[in-house]
């Protein structure tokens, strides 16, 4: 449930669902997101669900804080269809060409490369949200012993397809971008494809993702 609604500037609602990050709070966020999206309220022009917040932006020429707040407060999000989620397998190659931060992770986590991969691969992760850059999924939760902080100085360029970790989350860089997460491997899949306007994102909030290891040869032949 929404604990509090405040304004983010003069053209957005800040809906706070709590401070913790877990599936049950996030499912509530996604439920509200999907309900409001379906209803197409005049003036609302964007919805951004995240771990435990939902930002609703609106066109100040068409509506205002009071109207949108009143609308959101009276929505019955329970009426919404249950989250229609998929289970996806993502191939990832952790060859040394790709796992740029494996040494750093070994040091921080005090685990061997093998152990890190064993902990990471073949497990189910939940997609809490997508964004920052187009289509980037935020997946969780990593095991307690797999949690490392961001790099002190972010990279100017993280290669497209990089699978990276920070705190309890994993993500995938959908295109080359700056970034500070610990890079563990790379996927040959196109996780974001702007030519598919209906479904540009391979992974969507509510989906479950499992990383499956592939060899460097399988990686190279993947798109052939």
């Amino acid at each position, binding site marked *: 449930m929404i604990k509090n609604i*405040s*304004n*983010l*500037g*003069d*053209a*957005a609602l*800040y809906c706070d669902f709590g*401070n913790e*990050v877990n599936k049950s709070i996030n499912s509530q966020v996604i439920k509200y*997101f999907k309900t409001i*999206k379906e209803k197409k309220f005049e003036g609302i*022009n*964007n*919805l*951004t*669900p*995240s*771990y*435990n*917040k*939902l*930002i609703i*932006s609106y066109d*100040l*020429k068409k509506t*205002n*804080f009071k109207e949108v707040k009143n609308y959101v407060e009276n929505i019955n999000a329970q009426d919404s269809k249950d989250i229609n989620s998929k289970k996806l397998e993502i191939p990832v190659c952790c060859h040394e060409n790709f796992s740029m931060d494996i040494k750093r992770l070994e040091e921080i986590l005090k685990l061997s490369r093998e152990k890190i991969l064993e902990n990471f691969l073949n497990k189910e992760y939940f997609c809490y*949200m*997508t*964004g*920052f*850059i*187009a*289509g*980037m999924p*935020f997946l969780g939760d990593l095991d307690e012993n797999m949690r490392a902080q961001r790099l002190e100085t972010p990279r100017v360029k993280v290669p497209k397809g990089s699978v990276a970790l920070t705190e309890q989350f994993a993500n995938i860089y*959908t*295109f080359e*971008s700056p970034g500070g997460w610990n890079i563990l491997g790379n996927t040959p899949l196109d996780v*974001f494809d*702007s030519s598919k*306007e209906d479904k*540009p*994102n391979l992974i*969507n*909030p509510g989906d479950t993702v499992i990383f499956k290891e592939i060899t460097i040869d399988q990686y190279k032949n993947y798109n052939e």
Partner: protein
Amino acid sequence: MSSNYLEIIRPGINTTFQDKGRDHLYHIGIPFSGAMDNRNYLIANKLVNNNLDSAVIEFAYQGPHIKYSGEKINCAITGDVIFSIKKKDTEIEGKCYESYQIENGDEINIISTNKSVYGYLALGGEFDLKFQWNSCSINTKANIGSNDGKKLDVGQRINLKKINSNKDIKKTNYINTKIENIRVIKGTNFDYFSEEGKKIFYEKEFTVSKLSDRMGMRLEGPKIDNIVNTNIKSEGLIKGVIQVPADGNPIIMLSDHGTIGGYPKIGVVASVDYDRLVQMSPGSKIKFKEINLSDAETLFKLYEMETQNLLSQI
């Protein structure tokens, strides 16, 4: 092949096609984009008898040098821009907010914006552009929009699908006003900052850094001290949000911003001041002034009425 087209002799520093932008895509990570200075974008279109949501060429600092081929067409430039129009046997110094008729072989040379950042070139007609999600706005970070999501490049040819039959010459006396203070509404993490930090935010001057682009405006100046946590759990952003990362230097999210961020939000720029904010060039001094939500809403209404008024007089 269209017989009416532009050739890019010099592309300029950051020249893109922009229109009203694309909405309903934050949740997949795609920002609004669109013309940075919306008012100047609208005026440019109105001056050449276009629909107000038509695509224009947006440039920053140094603009493009363009050669036109085809039948007569109107063009207009808005912003605070130095440019010239080269005709067969004469070169005229261009004035912003006036439309000009150009013909086969004429060149438009946009030398630079003057003490501002963005300018707009509209042609009376319709460019032949690819639309993605109902907009041809170019987002160069995600390579979305027309021109494969890339800046305009030297030697490129841009076709026009249509030329307006209405070739009335238009003019307006608009002057871009500068403002001393950027009005802001308190952010959702305002209490993360020390009393001293809050005072600095509202009382001290900041300088616009060179590291500013369509994604964000970085500011330099006295550091804003955080006493709670320099990170928050990542959450949605909107344009105008002022985040303060661990180094204490504020960053204002602009039209191509990342849709999610994990730095505390100290404030949000009021919508009324966004067009003028984006025009502040590196080195400009910026001061923030707090206003409440209801004043922000009223001020925006007035600004919007003024924009409509300006447009109706053209």
